[in-house]
């Protein structure tokens, strides 16, 4: 396969996604055959572009908070004074992952009400584990001789963390964020069951009115976003890894 082909395919996907979000009506002939006569072939209960932006916003903030907390937690439990909490924090984060997202939503609604908040909580809990695990792996698997040399040249614990450990761990941490984002992108659709404005609305509307075109449109947009963001973050990861001298 030619080297430029994957890049060209991604560029085409991005172009197609933008075209669909900006001018959904022009795609009507494509979806016409999927719906019964007289039913709308393109989602008509709101702006697809607006929903996509809201979807991305909620994923962005949930991942941001999850990343900050998870990285801090991983740093804390890999320091000498925090090592006792390593098993505890691991199991706490694992519990967050085993809890079904629907259950989190159901429990969060009575506490914080309908809307974006319960979705944010569910996504945050779901995003923690991959980032935490990756940061932990990175910080505990640094080359021994490098850490030893950092200590031997008289760096304090804090200097070692900032100058050596974090820069060298960054590619793996970004890998965790990448996994977390992709999980959140798909999980966020469920948020629409508790009235969060996400692309889940499109899918739910399709299910309610037996409109296959709506379901497909919601699903395809989420899928395209996931593929593009995944690849984008993979590229960032590769650049960071090269800069860290790992590859």
């Amino acid at each position, binding site marked *: 396969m030619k080297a430029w082909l994957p890049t060209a395919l991604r560029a085409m996907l991005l172009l197609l996604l933008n075209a669909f979000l900006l001018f959904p009506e022009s795609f009507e002939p494509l979806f016409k055959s999927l719906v019964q006569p007289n039913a709308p072939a393109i989602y008509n209960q709101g702006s697809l572009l607006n929903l996509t932006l809201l979807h991305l916003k909620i994923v962005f903030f949930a991942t941001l908070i999850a990343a900050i907390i998870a990285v801090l937690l991983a740093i804390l439990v890999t320091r000498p004074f925090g090592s006792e909490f390593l098993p505890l924090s691991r199991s706490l984060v694992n519990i967050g992952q085993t809890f079904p997202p629907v259950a989190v939503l159901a429990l969060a609604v009575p506490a914080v009400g309908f809307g974006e908040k319960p979705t944010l909580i569910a996504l945050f809990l779901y995003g923690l584990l991959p980032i935490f695990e990756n940061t932990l792996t990175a910080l505990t698997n640094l*080359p021994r*001789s*490098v850490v030893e*040399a*950092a200590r*031997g*040249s*008289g*760096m304090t614990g804090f200097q070692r963390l900032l100058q*050596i450990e974090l820069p060298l761990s960054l590619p793996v941490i970004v890998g965790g964020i990448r996994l977390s984002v992709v999980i959140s992108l798909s999980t966020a659709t469920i948020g629409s069951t508790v009235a969060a404005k996400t692309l889940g609305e499109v899918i739910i509307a399709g299910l309610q009115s037996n409109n296959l075109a709506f379901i497909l449109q919601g699903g395809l947009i989420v899928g395209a976003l996931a593929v593009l963001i995944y690849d984008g973050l993979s590229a960032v990861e590769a650049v960071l890894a090269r800069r860290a001298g790992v590859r």
Partner: protein
Amino acid sequence: MIEIDAITKQYDGVAVVDDVSMVIEPRTITVVVGTSGSGKTTLLRMINRLVEPSSGAIRLDGEDNRSIAGYELRRRIGYAIQGHGLFPHRTVAQNIATVPSLLGWERRRIDLKVAELLTLFQLEPEIYGPRYPHELSGGQQQRVGVARALAAEPNVLLMDEPFGALDPIIRAKAQEDLLAIQKHFGTTIVLVTHDMNEAFHLAHKIAVMDQGKVVQYGPPAELVQTPATSFVETLIGETERPFRLLSISRAGMAVEPGEAAGEPIREDRTQQDALADLLWSGRTALPVVSVTGMPMGRVTLDALLKRAARPL
């Protein structure tokens, strides 16, 4: 001067280093040898407090090494390790500048020091300074590792099997470099190795460690002539003894007046080299010249054989 005073390190009640006392003279190379698990690395790491002793004290120029914070102590002591431990995300120049930056040197002074060290280690500063460690060969990485350890002009340099990962040819070159560097800066070097050839080649004094104790500490010749225990004898190698003796003396010390034919040998080569030359060329005497090429006399096979014999 490094005074090690009754130092002991225990892990779970087992002494890894057991009541070791020794004095390391300034501006000398002391090599600590022993089998793996003999405690030699732990002893070394207690000097810069990467390991804290269970009891005893270490004094550097009379000052207890616990009188300042561990990280401050380590900025004053050079430390080079096996596998160099260069920071992969930093350039060669940034790596060498590590300790001076921590000490807050001015930018200009750091740049000058980095260039000086790179030149000293035969690495062109303009070419190698901006490179990353993975772009260098094994031998070059090792040299940068030693340069980094020397950057803040420490009086003491600790080396933990610094040449262990190098192939024999590069290792020999690195050892020559180290001897030259030690002469140049007058650094006190403590080096840990399990390679006896390396120990005999570099050391002013050798400390032999066995099961946490220093069983013998003295000049190389003393170890060969009067080994303290059978362990020291085994470590030196019974069949190696005459060659070890010849390898620590220079050809110039065996010189006698007279003429000899054929290719001469420089007086700063070892007597072992002279013997090898004699045996290989089938001669009974070699002409000896000074470092500048002036004839000094000759060295004979008989004289070398006498010198290689067990002292009475």
